[in-house]
């Protein structure tokens, strides 16, 4: 009936239904009140248009019972809606004790998730159906917001503190994950998918993560051996640009220009780091010129490219 036009988001979590019940109740109430007022005003406008023969005797400039009546009615209705919304809301603070704990980190412009078993994924979150999940949220740079419309959940990830969001997915499927808090240039590209899997598929997915050593994996080892991760790692005390999702995307430089982080830029940044310093960072990185050979550089580049699993974003302006 809807001709492919979406009117409502899917419901895929245990709380989506109760939120929607309130939403549709409000829609019914506001529709009725708004419709009534519209009919009233349009009715008056027609009936009492200048020159109409309507009876105008007995007009009043005020009516105390009427005014008290609608004030009290508004209060009662407002407080009822408040109570309903607040009751559902405080559940956000009380996730079930047996919930699966996943760490989520927001950074410009990607989401990184780490599962209990150490599995790590970017812009993709695999969760089992029917099991409560708590995502503890942190941010590496600016405020982001974890938003899954199908779950009716949203929570900001704020630098300097940890916040939490929980949900129990009820329908296997693939759902949008958005960043809802404006976070800079590629805000609208920051997001991905939540994959809700049946338990057995979820277990299979977990065990299938990270087997064998690829070029990128070798690059990652080198990345650690050379000490790159000491500064570029997420937990580093030295503030250095994060390298996730840098490849193929624009980088703002300290001189206010912007470059695309292609292979050239990455290579130059390793060998001549003072040449194009990312905006907001001190030019403290030493040159690795002469310390890595070409093969090692390839491994490092493969690793850096692997940090941008989606490759360059589909954005005409960049090309």
């Amino acid at each position, binding site marked *: 009936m809807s001709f492919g036009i979406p009117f409502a988001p899917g419901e895929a979590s245990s709380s989506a239904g109760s939120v929607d019940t*309130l939403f549709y109740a409000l829609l019914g109430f506001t529709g009725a009140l708004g419709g009534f007022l519209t009919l009233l005003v349009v009715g008056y406008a027609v009936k009492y*248009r200048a020159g109409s023969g309507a009876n105008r005797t007995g007009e009043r400039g005020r009516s105390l019972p009427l005014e008290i009546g609608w004030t009290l009615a508004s209060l009662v209705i407002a407080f009822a809606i408040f109570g309903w919304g607040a009751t559902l809301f405080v559940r956000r603070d009380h996730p079930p004790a047996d919930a699966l704990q996943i760490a989520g980190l927001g950074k410009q412009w990607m989401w990184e998730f780490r599962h209990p078993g150490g599995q790590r994924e970017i812009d993709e979150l695999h969760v089992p159906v029917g099991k409560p999940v708590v995502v503890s949220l942190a941010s590496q740079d600016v405020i982001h917001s974890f938003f899954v419309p199908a779950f009716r959940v949203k929570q900001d990830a704020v630098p300097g503190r940890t916040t939490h969001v929980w949900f129990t997915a009820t329908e296997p499927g693939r759902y949008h994950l958005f960043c809802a808090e404006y976070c800079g240039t590629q805000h*609208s590209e920051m997001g991905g998918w939540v994959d809700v899997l049946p338990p057995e598929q979820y277990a299979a997915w977990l065990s299938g993560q990270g087997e064998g050593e690829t070029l990128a994996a070798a690059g990652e080892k080198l990345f650690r051996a050379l000490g790159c991760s000491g500064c570029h790692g997420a937990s580093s005390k030295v503030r250095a640009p994060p390298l996730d999702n840098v490849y193929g995307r624009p980088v703002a430089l300290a001189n206010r220009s912007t470059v695309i982080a292609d292979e050239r830029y990455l290579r130059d940044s390793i060998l001549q780091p003072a040449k194009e310093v990312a905006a907001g960072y001190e030019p403290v990185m030493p040159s690795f010129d002469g310390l890595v050979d070409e093969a090692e550089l390839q491994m490092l580049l493969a690793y850096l490219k692997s940090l941008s699993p989606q490759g360059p974003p589909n954005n005409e302006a960049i090309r």
Partner: protein
Amino acid sequence: MSSDAATQLSYLDEGAGPRAWLLTTDHKRVAWLYLVSLTAFFFLGGAFAVLMRLELATPGGDLVSDDVYNRLFSLHGIIMVWFFLVPSIPATLGNFLLPLMIGARDLAFPRLNLASWYVFVFGSLFALFSVLAGGVDTGWTFYTPLSTLYANGFVSTAAMGVFIVGFSSIMTGINFIVTVHTLRAPGLTWFRLPIFVWTIYATALVMVLATPVLAASLILIVLERVFGIGIFNPDLGGDPLLFQHLFWFYSHPAVYIMILPGMGVVSEVLPCFSRRPLFGYKAVALSSMAIAVFGFLVWGHHMFVSGQSAYAGVIFSFLSFCVAIPSAIKVFNWSLTLRKGEITFEAPMLYALFFLALFTFGGLAGLFLAALAVDVHVHDTYFVVAHFHYIMVGGMVTAYMAGLHFWWPKMTGRMYSETWGRIAAAATFIGFNLTFFPQFVLGFLGMPRRYHTYPPEFQFWHVLSSAGAVVLAAGYLMPLFYLGWSLFRGARAPDNPWGATGLEWQTASPPPPHNFERMPRVSRPPYAYAMKGLKHERFSPHKETTGETAA
């Protein structure tokens, strides 16, 4: 034309050169200075909006790059909020009408009034510089640490512009408060004041009390950005949420700065074209004050998912429902004003009725946002965008257009084209709903705001919205032409073309330099629209209207 009006000079005859305008302390001329500046900013901010809507007609980023898009919505917000909406009705209609409505010769501090315009212009130069130099990409909300550490636009310049313009607001606010307290005509008691004066007074209080907090927050941003002092940056021991608290402590009351004067305008227009007193006058007057007070207590409803405690969220939700009550009361009173009237549908009345519809639906959408669990889903989506545009554009801008048409004959001494006025009113109403109603659906579907690109399944609603924006733009451009034409070629307006009761209609159109030939005395309540012989009163300047008599 009355013989009086023909012989006496109006405020427009007092010198036409730049000097006569730029050094004037006449509140009526200062109102024009503001009107011209604000119109320029309105169309600049509007042009940014049109570019955004064109970009959003397709899911991909095909028209402008992400950085350009981010600058468009940031500048659209900054310009529309601080350089148009906040000063819009107070600085133009308020400036022009407040002394006239209370029977005063000018505002209490005429030179401060002119100074406020210069401060506004000085601040706007900073804003324009940041537009021309490359823009700002923080959004109008300047959230930290994006604005302090990561933004690469001209944040400090834009923030300084907003900071300076804030002083213009404070000056205007002080001037209005003192004027209402000290310069009312004999017999004009508080409960004989037109609602427009009440709302302007309430607005002025909010301007004076809230704007300094904004100034403080913006200074803190600049301190952190320029000198690296840790206030909001967690790496330096600051707290990003502190900024949101400070920002919304100003910016939520600012929402009421932006809507209260609009409520004042329609409270004048609806009774006039219904030929009925405003229903429940006292309740409307006092609810304006209640809104101004409660408006200070609800800032945290912008932060339900920000990481503030759940209990803070519950309290702010409760207070937000409280502030809904006075707004609801007003809507009921306006609707009942039409009852048993003699209603005509000139352009100001059409705009006022459209205000009533759009404000009501925007306000009802606010109930969804105040309800905590629903807000979690629709926060930071197009649902919020639609909600505040229904209030700010559908409400305030529509009321501004109603007021501009209603008082145009008074301000210029000319009539505008009624036909074109009605067409423009209808175009804005249709264009507005087509633009913003689809955004409610988009928000419920989960479309986040401030997105340069979006998943293709949202496109249907975006296309409707973009199409509406074109109609809306046409509706706003039309008055520029027919009002401009009227300025030079319009029919001469009588002193009281609408047969309205306010004191401003008892003097010439346009008014003499000191407003009244003889200072008025007031002996009647406002909106004393009589029911008999109405048709003869309109367009007949010689006849005493009802109510106040000149001593």
